[in-house]
């Protein structure tokens, strides 16, 4: 039964946003899901496979889109962005820009920010040559290459090196925090390369590997023990061009000697940072972001940033899709609680 005068706007159509919109709608409240791209799904649309069960992210997105379509209280607006917001006594008046350039107004009583994360610009690491050598790329860009390889395009690699913690756990040039998901997605990516090119030499340069989750440790061990990805403990110092290929210099810290290796592709697991639109959007709703631009929840709450503002997913901190979904559902619960008062 539709509850009158209670409408939520969810900004961002990734796993977190889709889940939040769905659960609010299923509870009988109107939810409007705003997505700036042409399709729903967010970052996971770009991904090949997922951890820890090697499942297709596209299947998850398709399933969610089906469920959203099924729920009459959910309205999905793609290629739509939020231009401005005016605070009212019971919510906000939003001005939206639509896909055809027109604008429209919308009155809402709660907003859920689910704008996700993006990769830090790692060209600051001149020692790795990102932006200088074309075969040095970040993990998200590498997913595109993985897809191309999967479709039989591109040159067969003889060697691929993954650098973890580029920009993360770095008080000097990057961010002090750990971006949480890179150890797992790097293992996934390394495993996929070996699946496609069993003769390729695949290296993962690490400080640690963090696999705390259900099935996570087993996943990484499978990549090391069954797929024979070589893990080397040492943060690489430099990437040098070497006759069209790339030479990596590092220390194997476990045996304690300097090492080097020539590969074709270097993948930088870059720090996950909030998308650029996060802070301005939060400000539109009178909400501050934290030291690194992530949204912060109020003490004792699940997903509340301020009075009528909630958030879920990567815009709060880097998180993997299943947990982004859970956070979306938590945000929905608190919106429903607000609407039920």
């Amino acid at each position, binding site marked *: 039964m539709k509850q009158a005068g209670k409408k939520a706007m969810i900004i961002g159509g990734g796993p977190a946003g889709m889940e939040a919109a769905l659960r609010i709608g299923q509870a009988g409240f109107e939810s409007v899901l705003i997505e700036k791209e042409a399709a729903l799904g967010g970052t996971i649309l770009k991904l090949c496979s997922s951890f820890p069960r090697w499942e297709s992210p596209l299947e998850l997105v398709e399933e969610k889109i089906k469920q959203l379509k099924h729920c009459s209280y959910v309205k999905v607006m793609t290629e739509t962005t939020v231009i401005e917001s005016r605070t009212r006594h019971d919510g906000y008046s939003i001005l939206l820009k639509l896909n055809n350039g027109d604008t429209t107004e919308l009155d809402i009583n709660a907003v859920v920010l689910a704008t996700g994360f993006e990769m830090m610009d790692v060209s600051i690491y001149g020692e790795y040559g990102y932006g*200088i050598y074309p075969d040095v790329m970040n993990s998200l860009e590498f997913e595109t290459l993985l897809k191309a390889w999967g479709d039989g395009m591109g040159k067969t690699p003889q060697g691929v090196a993954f650098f973890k913690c580029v920009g993360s756990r770095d008080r000097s040039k990057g961010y002090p925090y750990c971006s949480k998901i890179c150890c797992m997605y790097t293992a996934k990516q390394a495993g996929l390369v070996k699946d496609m090119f069993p003769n390729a030499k695949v290296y993962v340069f690490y400080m640690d590997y963090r696999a705390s989750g259900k099935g996570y440790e087993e996943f990484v061990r499978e990549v090391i023990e069954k797929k024979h990805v070589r893990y080397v403990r040492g943060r690489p110092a430099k990437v040098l061009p070497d006759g069209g290929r790339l030479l990596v210099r590092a220390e194997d810290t476990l045996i304690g000697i300097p090492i080097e290796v020539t590969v074709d592709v270097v993948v930088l697991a870059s720090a996950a940072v909030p998308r650029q639109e996060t802070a301005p959007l939060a400000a539109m709703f009178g909400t501050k972001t934290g030291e690194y631009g992530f949204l912060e929840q109020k003490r004792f709450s699940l997903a509340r940033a301020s009075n009528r503002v909630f958030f879920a997913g990567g815009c709060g901190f880097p998180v993997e899709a299943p947990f982004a979904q859970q956070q979306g559902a938590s945000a929905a619960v608190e919106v429903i609680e607000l609407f039920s008062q």
Partner: protein
Amino acid sequence: MMNVAYFPGCSLHTVSSEYDKSTHLVCESLEVGLKEVEDWNCCGATAGHSMDHELTMGLNARNLAQASLMNIDPLVIPCPGCFNRLKNTNIRLKTFSSVVREEERSMKNPPQELPRVMNLLQFLIEVIGLERIAEPVKIPLKGLKLAAYYGCLTTRPRKVAEFDDPEQPVSMDRILNVLGAETVLWSHKAECCGGPFITSELSIALDLSRQVLETARHSGAEAIVVACPMCQLSLDSRQVVVGHDQVLQPRLPIIYFTQLIALAYGFPIRRTGLKSLFINPLTLLAKKGLA
């Protein structure tokens, strides 16, 4: 017309006099007056910081005090080694009154502040600017393919140098480009040449110099351009030794960037000191119609 305080350091008066000479020519064209610091002493060189921290601070505190008496800002230093030590001391000194001589306390205009400490490359980029540097160019260095070599201390460590990017520096490249030359992309532009050990542990210096020379060669460079007396000496005077059992022909001239600026400004070759380099650059320059 502007005046700057100038700290040449020991090398520029001896083994690297061509760096000093060409710097003077360049500054003359740019209407920058180089006022040498009165009675300056050695910055301590590698030995100072390696053996005695307090001595090095003391030596450079004296230099800074001498410089500050001139009441000219900034203090420009062509040698990156001297720059590193002077800037380091500059940063650490909280007050300098303790090293100023008693007599100076009674001066009518006692020095108030320590000057900004800059290396020469930094001064040219940040204070003079590329546009101004391009103005006096009479002979564009067209056709020259150069490897700009920054060595260690022009940009490192970043907290001290506060200049350019330590991993992919571009300042010297930009200067050479406005002079009309092409610069190559290469991997060792800021790797160590081994200079500190050319006398006492030559094999180490040779190994590192060889890597710099080889990678420059592989990148298509016809000459290496430097901003440091130690790098210049190491790569130039030892190239015949390094290249003895390697295929490093033709030799790569190792030229101070100020010499190239002076050349582009139209100064005659004999004044630029290009002839005093071990590996003769004149053959290369003649081939390009520049000499």
